[in-house]
């Protein structure tokens, strides 16, 4: 919101712009991470021959483990950056298990 000035209508309507902006940042981040997992786990688990349209058993199990492992990596990296003090400003990123 800060990017576009505060409109009289909005501020008299009782909207806390800081809070809205943090929520939007959070949604953007979760959505960005989700899209990266979809792409990474597709590369890791799905054979590009496309002989059939269903996920086979091996692909399905691979996807489940892949998503779990991505979360693990995300957590390890988050801990590392926290200990490095690098994410002092990342306080808005509360939801993705960080």
């Amino acid at each position, binding site marked *: 919101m800060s990017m576009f000035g505060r409109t009289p209508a909005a501020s008299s*309507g*009782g*909207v*806390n712009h800081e*809070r*809205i902006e943090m*929520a*939007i940042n*959070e*949604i*953007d981040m*979760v*959505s960005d991470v*989700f*899209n990266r*997992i*979809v792409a990474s*786990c*597709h590369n890791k*688990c*799905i054979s*590009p021959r*496309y*002989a*059939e*349209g*269903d*996920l086979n058993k091996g*692909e*399905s199990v691979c*996807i*489940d483990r892949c*998503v*779990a492992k991505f*979360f693990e990596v995300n*957590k390890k990296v988050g801990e590392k950056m926290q200990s490095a003090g690098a994410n002092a400003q990342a306080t808005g990123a509360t*939801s*993705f*298990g960080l």
Partner: protein
Amino acid sequence: MDFSQFNAAEQAHMTKVIEKKQMQDFMRLYSGLVERCFNSCCNDFTSKALSSKEEQCVLNCADKFLKHSERVGQRFAELNAEAMAPPKP
């Protein structure tokens, strides 16, 4: 995410933001799917028409990609809920 502490005006605002974002995400998913399936399935440019083999590949690819995204979404929601839950004693 927890918007329960938001007032009515803020919740209405967030609903609009989320709807807009979902629309954009759907469009990006769609064009990303087209790009991925095109790149995997189409390698013959001696003709501009899709061969029946390419077409079958594209249909399977799209099918599989949607099922893949859906499954990732399920696991993602579960793990995200777990990560947000209060730590167990």
